[in-house]
């Protein structure tokens, strides 16, 4: 598929009632925005600070409405969206969230109504990582994947499909030259692999060690890392009293906030920064890998970019590996 065909395909999707979201570069900022025409699309190799997460798990989601003694469960509307140009690390994050939220009707409905189109161009620092990751397409949740291959001045793409929805859309558009990759489930045969298995042991062993005491002094508990992290999925449920109705909503929560672990009477189980930051790493590198046989961190580096205290997750992991 060449550039022109791809643009036509995107215009075709927009014409067929899909809301197409794609990476846009506005000034220095990369965001995920709705696009109006296929011409607006290009394969952006840069990473948006805010991931796709908010499209599937809105920061504040209405779950039910209470009005005149009647409870109405909110059913997410059938809005068809296309998520265009997802990088492999965000595809991995989405695959994980899909497992965690497998019984959640709100998330599942949104995912069912979404077409995920992944792309191979990634930020330069991720290229090495990606080569190693290529073979894992069969373990990722996607509908169509665009692999860029340079073809003179004109960009061209090898097209993979990962679902029947992806195939149907391409067939209907009139493009046949694709290769289908059968989704074989999220977990590779080799399981977690040596690096992630080693991290489980190292992080667990590091508990109570010097690094966490240092981070206790450094981290300011702002929770920004958990907001930008594509795999942070914690939430709280709360009620909101409006003028003539009451809403029960689900909102993003962060384990860096003190009240996250507070129980009636005021006791907090995660009562120090040291405990909270360890808990975050423990969840990503110990508990998620053990519960889902998938890493809880997709190495996107967003948390490092956003941290006002200069906490660098790669440096920390390197230290944890060396010191334990």
């Amino acid at each position, binding site marked *: 598929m060449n550039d022109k065909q791809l643009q036509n395909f995107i215009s075709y999707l927009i014409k067929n009632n899909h809301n197409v979201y794609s990476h846009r570069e506005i000034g220095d900022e990369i965001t995920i925005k709705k696009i109006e025409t296929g011409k607006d699309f290009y394969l952006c190799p840069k990473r948006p600070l805010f991931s796709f997460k908010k499209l599937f798990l809105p920061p504040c989601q209405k779950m039910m409405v209470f009005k005149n003694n009647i409870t109405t469960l909110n059913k997410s509307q059938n809005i068809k969206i296309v998520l265009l140009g997802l990088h492999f690390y965000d595809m991995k994050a989405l695959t994980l969230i899909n497992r965690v939220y497998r019984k959640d009707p709100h998330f599942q409905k949104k995912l069912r109504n979404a077409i995920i189109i992944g792309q191979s161009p990634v930020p330069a620092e991720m290229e090495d990582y990606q080569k190693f990751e290529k073979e894992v397409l069969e373990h990722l949740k996607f509908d169509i994947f665009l692999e860029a291959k340079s073809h003179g001045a004109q960009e061209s793409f090898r097209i993979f499909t990962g679902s029947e929805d992806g195939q149907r859309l391409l067939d209907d558009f009139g493009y046949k030259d694709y290769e289908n990759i059968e989704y074989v489930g999220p977990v590779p045969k080799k399981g977690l692999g040596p690096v992630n298995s080693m991290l489980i042991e190292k992080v667990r062993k590091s508990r*109570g060690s010097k690094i966490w005491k240092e981070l206790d002094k450094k981290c300011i508990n702002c929770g920004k890392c958990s907001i930008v992290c594509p795999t942070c999925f914690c939430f709280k449920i709360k009620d909101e009293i409006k003028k003539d109705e009451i809403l029960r909503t689900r909102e993003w929560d962060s384990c860096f906030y003190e009240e996250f672990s507070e*129980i009636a009477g005021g006791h907090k189980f995660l009562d120090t920064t040291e405990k909270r930051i360890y808990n975050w790493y423990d969840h990503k590198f110990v508990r998620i890998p053990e519960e889902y046989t998938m890493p809880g961190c997709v190495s996107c580096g967003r948390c490092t970019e956003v941290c006002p205290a200069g906490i660098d997750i790669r440096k920390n992991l390197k230290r944890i590996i060396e010191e334990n």
Partner: protein
Amino acid sequence: MKNPYGPIQAKIVNIEELSPINKLFTLQIKDNQIRNTFKFKHGQFFILSVPGFGEAPFGFCSSPTIKETFQVSVDKRGSLTSKLFELKKGCEVGIRGPYGNGFDQKKIKNKNLILVAGGCGLSPLRTIIQDANLHPEKFKNIQIFYGCRNPELLAFKKDYNKWNKNIEINLTVDTADETWKNNVGVVTDLLTSEKIKKDCVAILVGPPVMYKFVIQKLVELGLSDEDIYVSLERRMHCGIGICQHCALVNGNYVCTDGPLFSYAEIKDTPEGI
């Protein structure tokens, strides 16, 4: 796909004031079909809500063998419980559940049972006590050790002399009044080798500070880590192992893997108790 967050409507069919800060609510699920299929086990809990005042987890506190209604004992502590205190007979609340893995009764087959409770911790244990009172053939001897701040706050006072001879209660308070004839001091004082029956399983429900000392005492008295069960209290929002509020560092969720854990399961878990 079934919506796991949708509450079931339940009617308050009775309210009893057990102490100045505690009320016992008897609830009945409104929908006949749901009511007839609603079952819970010892050790399970449910999420109770009042629109506008949010949700919170509560232990059941009546025997699971009672079918038409179930009870919950509520201490007035926050905004939801304060709202519950304002509600009258006939009002409706939302419930969802039951949640938790429940307590496998096989674990106490042919064994004596020690129930150690502190403060409002007697409430969730009442599912067992009431069950044993109604169906004595299902249990061996039950010894309750219950500590409270003062005599006025003791839960289910009126029940004690109605329990059958297999259920023995031992009381202690931090501060006595002039009518008090029982022990004054901590609940650990009551646990002695002369007192406790041999070959027993213990279940503890109370504040974390109580667990530390009671577990130590029970281990000294010869109970194995596997035979000591503790109920963990954590903040919960979903009840189904997603929201992470009740996650333990050992990878367990209090909502789905607990809230009752054997001491063996959690003794090495940081911040477990």
